[in-house]
C-alpha cells in the first residue's frame, strides 16, 4: 500500500525505455497504444478555470473545496491515494496521454500534497524535521509546497516565519542564510524572458566573434539584451572572450532568473531543488546525477537511505514545472478614488525620476510566449503557449503593436545592494551583497519584503536599499512625508487579480 516505493512502477519505466530503444527511437503518439495511464488522476481539486463571473467563481471554488475534502476521506481508507494520484510517469506524458489542463491539475495536486516519511520525505540520516538546514541537503523544513507559498493566493509568497534557513550547520541560527519564499506566479513568463535575453547575449557574442575572426582584430563591445545593459565583452580573433567587464550576469551569458541571487536558470531546476531541500523528496534525475552533497551518502537508487526509491518521478517533475509555468500573471490595479488616482499617476512618474526604474525596469518585451520544456531523456520537448494555455489573467499581445509587453519591474540582472543587505557569505560564485533585481509585479500581495523578509512594509524595503540603489534610495529618503505617498500608492497598485477561494 505504501506509495512511492513501488518497484513495480520502476518496472514499467524500464519497459518503456526498452520500447524506446527497440522501437522507433522516439516515443510519440504512435506508441500510445503500448502505454496506459498508471495511478495518476486529476481530482478536480483545482483547475485553470477561473470564471470572470463572481458567482461562477465562487461555485468553482466551493466545488473544488468539496472535492478536496472527499478525496481526503478516500486517502484515509486507501493510504497513499492522494500521493499516487500525482504519480504520472514521463512515458505517459510522452505518449500524449495527458493534456495541458490535466498536467496542470496533477502538478497542482503535487504542490498541495502532504509529504510524509511513508512517501519518502526526509532522509535516513536526517531528523524528521530540521528547521535550520544542514549544508546543501537542506531540512526538511516543510511538509508541502503550499506551506510556504500561500500569501496572496495560490503559489503565493511566504511569511517571514516561513523563511528558509539555508545551508547552515543544522543547529545554529547564525550559521544559516535566511531567505523569504517569493510568490511564484508569472514564473513561466519570467523564464521565457530570461531565455530570450540569454539567446540575445549569446548571439551578440557569436556575431562579435565571427566579425573579429574575419577582421582579425580584437573587439570590445557593449552587450545588452532587451535594452538591459550587461557591461562589455572583449572578443579576440583567436576565439578568446574576456568577460571581466560583464555586469550582473555570469560569463556563460545565461540569465538565471530564479533564486534571490539569480542562480537558477529555470522552473524545473528550481522546483526539483525545492523538493529536495525542503521535503527531502528526491527526483529521479537528481538521484541519477548522484551528487552526494545534495542527495545524501547512501548511493544507489536510494541515496538518502530512507528506504523509499523513486520518490519523485520525472513525470511528476514535468507536471509540477508546467503547473508553475502556467500560473496567472500579476496585475496592476490603480485606486478608483480620483484623488488617489492622481497621486498614483504621480507615483508612477516618481518611480522613473527617483531612479527605481533603472533596475526595476517597468516592462520587457517578450517575443514568443511559447514555454518549451525540454525532455531530459531523449524524448520530445513539451510546448505550452502561455498566451492561450496559461491561467487567466495571462500574457496578452498588445492590441495595437501585437507585442507581448511584460510589466515585470525587473531587469533580470544582478546588482550590488550594499553593506546593510549583505549576507553572511556568497553563493554559487555570486557575492554576498549581490542579488538579482526581484520583479515587483504582485508586490502588494507578497509582503514581507527583501531576501530575508526583514521589511514589513514597502517603504521599509525601499529605505533598506543600498549599493547600486543607494542614490535612488537617498532621493526617496530626502522626500517629505507628503511627497513619499505617491510612490507608495503606485507600488500598492502592483497586485494580483481578485479571486474568490476557500483555502
Amino acid at each position, binding site marked *: 500500500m505504501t506509495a512511492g516505493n513501488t518497484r513495480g512502477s520502476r518496472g514499467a519505466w524500464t519497459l518503456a525505455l526498452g520500447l524506446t530503444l527497440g522501437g522507433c527511437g522516439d516515443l510519440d503518439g504512435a506508441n500510445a497504444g503500448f502505454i496506459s495511464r498508471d495511478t495518476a488522476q486529476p481530482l478536480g481539486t483545482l483547475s485553470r478555470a477561473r470564471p470572470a463571473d463572481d458567482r461562477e467563481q465562487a461555485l468553482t471554488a*466551493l466545488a473544488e473545496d468539496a472535492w478536496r475534502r472527499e478525496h481526503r476521506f*478516500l486517502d484515509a481508507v486507501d493510504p497513499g491515494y492522494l500521493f499516487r494520484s500525482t504519480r504520472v510517469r514521463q512515458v505517459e506524458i510522452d505518449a500524449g496521454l495527458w493534456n495541458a489542463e490535466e498536467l496542470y491539475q496533477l502538478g497542482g495536486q503535487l504542490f498541495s500534497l502532504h509529504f510524509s516519511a511513508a512517501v519518502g520525505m526526509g532522509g535516513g540520516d536526517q531528523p524528521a*524535521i*530540521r528547521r535550520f538546514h544542514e549544508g546543501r541537503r537542506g531540512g526538511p523544513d516543510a511538509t508541502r509546497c503550499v506551506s510556504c507559498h500561500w500569501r496572496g493566493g495560490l503559489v503565493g509568497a511566504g511569511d517571514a516565519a516561513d523563511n528558509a534557513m539555508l545551508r547552515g550547520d543544522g*543547529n545554529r541560527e547564525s550559521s544559516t542564510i535566511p531567505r523569504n519564499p517569493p510568490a511564484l506566479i508569472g514564473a513561466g513568463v519570467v523564464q521565457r524572458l530570461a531565455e530570450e535575453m540569454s539567446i540575445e547575449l549569446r548571439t551578440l557574442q557569436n556575431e562579435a566573434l565571427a566579425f573579429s575572426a574575419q577582421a582579425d582584430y580584437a573587439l570590445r563591445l557593449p552587450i545588452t539584451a532587451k535594452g538591459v545593459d550587461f557591461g562589455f565583452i572583449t572578443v579576440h580573433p583567436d576565439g578568446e572572450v574576456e568577460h571581466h567587464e560583464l555586469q550582473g550576469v555570469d560569463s556563460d551569458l545565461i540569465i538565471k532568473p530564479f533564486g534571490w541571487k539569480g542562480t537558477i536558470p529555470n522552473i524545473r531546476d528550481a522546483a526539483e531543488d525545492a523538493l529536495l531541500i525542503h521535503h527531502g523528496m528526491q527526483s529521479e534525475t537528481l538521484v541519477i546525477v548522484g551528487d552526494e552533497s545534495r542527495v545524501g551518502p547512501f548511493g544507489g537508487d536510494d541515496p538518502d537511505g530512507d528506504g523509499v526509491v523513486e520518490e519523485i518521478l520525472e513525470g511528476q517533475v514535468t507536471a509540477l514545472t508546467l503547473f508553475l509555468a502556467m500560473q496567472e500573471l500579476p496585475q496592476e490595479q490603480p485606486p478608483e478614488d480620483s484623488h488617489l488616482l492622481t497621486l498614483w499617476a504621480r507615483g508612477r512618474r516618481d518611480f522613473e525620476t527617483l531612479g527605481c526604474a533603472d533596475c526595476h525596469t517597468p516592462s520587457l518585451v517578450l517575443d514568443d510566449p511559447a514555454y518549451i520544456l525540454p525532455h531530459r531523456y531523449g524524448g520530445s520537448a513539451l510546448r505550452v503557449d502561455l498566451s492561450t494555455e496559461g491561467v487567466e489573467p495571462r500574457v496578452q499581445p498588445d492590441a495595437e503593436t501585437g507585442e507581448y509587453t511584460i510589466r515585470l519591474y525587473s531587469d533580470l540582472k544582478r546588482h550590488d545592494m550594499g553593506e546593510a543587505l549583505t549576507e553572511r557569505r556568497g553563493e554559487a560564485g555570486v557575492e554576498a551583497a549581490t542579488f538579482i533585481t526581484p520583479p515587483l509585479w504582485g508586490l502588494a500581495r507578497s509582503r514581507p519584503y527583501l531576501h530575508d523578509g526583514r521589511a514589513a512594509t514597502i517603504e521599509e524595503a525601499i529605505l533598506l536599499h543600498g549599493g547600486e540603489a543607494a542614490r535612488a534610495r537617498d532621493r526617496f529618503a530626502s522626500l517629505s512625508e507628503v511627497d513619499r505617498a505617491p510612490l507608495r500608492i503606485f507600488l500598492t497598485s502592483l497586485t494580483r487579480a481578485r479571486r474568490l477561494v476557500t483555502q
Partner: protein
Amino acid sequence: MLLAVGGEDPVPWPGTQAPDDAELNEQIEDALGLNELERAEEYLEAWEKGEDAEHIFVQQEWIDDGFWDLDRLFQFGDALFGHEFRADDGYGHEGKPVPMQRVHEGRRGGLDTFSCAGCHFVGGADGAGTIAQNALLLGDGEHLDSAVVRNPPAVIGLGPVQALATEMTTDLQLLRDGAVMAADESGQAQTVQMLSKGVEFGRLTVSAEGQLDTSELEGVDADLVVKPFGWKGNIPNLRRAVEDAARVHFGIQSHVLALEHQANPDPEALGRGPDWFDPDEDGRARELEEGILTAAAVYLAMLESPQIIPPHDPGLRDRWANGSALFDEIGCNDCHRRELPMLNAIWREYSDTTEGPPVEFNLLSDGEHPKSGNRVQLFSDLKRHDMGPELADPFEVSQDSIPAGVFLTRPLWGLAESPPYLHDGRAATIPEAIAAHGGEAEASRDAFTALSIDDRADLHVFLLSLSRVPRLRVPQ
C-alpha cells in the same frame, strides 16, 4: 476503488450541498466587501502612513464609555490580527528589530514575524501554522536544540473553550470552598472528589485547620483555575494569550504588562530599560493599549467554531460511523471528550485596570457563524495529562512547573484543517499523531495499533470529518 459520488456533474458537491442562491450571494458579498475594505485600507496607509496603527489604537476608556459597538470591536480585533507590526509600532526591542530571531532568548522571546496572520492561516483565516512556522520558545537565542518547539494552533472556536474553562474553574473552586466550610464546621478533615462537567480532576483534602492538600489534584493547578490555552494549558484567557503572543513574537509590549512591570519588575521577560513604561527601550511606550486587548479577546471569542462535516459518499459515510464508534471504544473519548456542556453563553470581557462594565455578548448568536451550540463538540476534557517521554519537551518550561511530558488535551475540533499535528508539529498525518501518543494515552494508542487496517482507516475517516466550513474569501 470506492468512488465518491458526483460523477460527471460539472459542479459536484460530494462533501455538502451546493449553497442555495441567497446564502451563496451573501458569502460572495461578504468576501468581496472585506476585500474592498482591505484594499481601501491598504491605499489609505500608503497615502497617510500611520493609518494602520490607528486601526489598532483602542483605549479601554472608550470601550468603558460604550463608544464602540460589538461590530466595531470585532473589526478592531480583526485589524490587530492582520496588522503588520513595524518599528513605528514598537516592533522588536532596543532598536534592533532586524533580522528575525527565530530561536527565542529565554522568556523574552524572539522576533518571528510581523503579524498574527503570518502564522495562523492553515485551513483558512485564523487557522493553524505549519512546521516552518513553529515557534522556538525559551531557547538561548541561537541553537535550535536549546528551544522548545510549538506549532501554532488554529484560533477559531476559542470563545466557547474559554467559557467552558471558566465554568469548570467555578465548579472546582466551589467544591474547594464547600470543603473548606465543611472542615471548618465539622472540625474534621474533608476530602472531595474534584469533578466538573464529568471530568475528574483528582482529589482535594482540607485539613481540620483549613490547610489545603493539593497533592492529589490531577491535570489542574493548585489554584484550580482551568487554563485552556497554550499547549501546556498555562494561559487562562484570550486577553493574556494575545498579550503574550504579541510580546514573544513581535516584541510588542502591552501597557497592562508595563503597569505590572512597574509594580513587580520582570526584566527577564520584558527588558531592562530604565523606564517602566518602555522596558524594551525601543523608544515606544504603550505599544499595545489595553483596549485593543479587549477588542482582540472579543474578536477571537466571536469567531466561528469548527464543525463536523462527514463524507457524502454512502460507503464512506458507513465507515465514518464505524470510526466514530471506534473513537469511543478504544478510549480516545476518555481524554478527547466529544462534548462538554456550556451552561452560560454570555461572554463578559472585563478590563484589567479600569472599572468599566464588561463587554457583553452571546457566544451562541453574536459574531461569525457557524457557532458551537450549547453542547460544545470540542473533543477535549481541558485537563492536563502525561503524554510519555517520547512527546516530552527537552526540559521543563513553564513557570508553573508543568512537567516536560505533560500537555493539555488538545481539542480535536477542526482537526482536518489544522495539520501538522502534536505540540511541535512532528506528525504529518493523523495516524502518525495517534501512534506518537504515550503516557496516559498508551492503552488507547495500543488499542489503535491493534485495530485491523480497515478499522484504523475508519477512525481516520471519522477524525477527518472534524473540520471547519468552507468560507469564501479573497486572499490578502
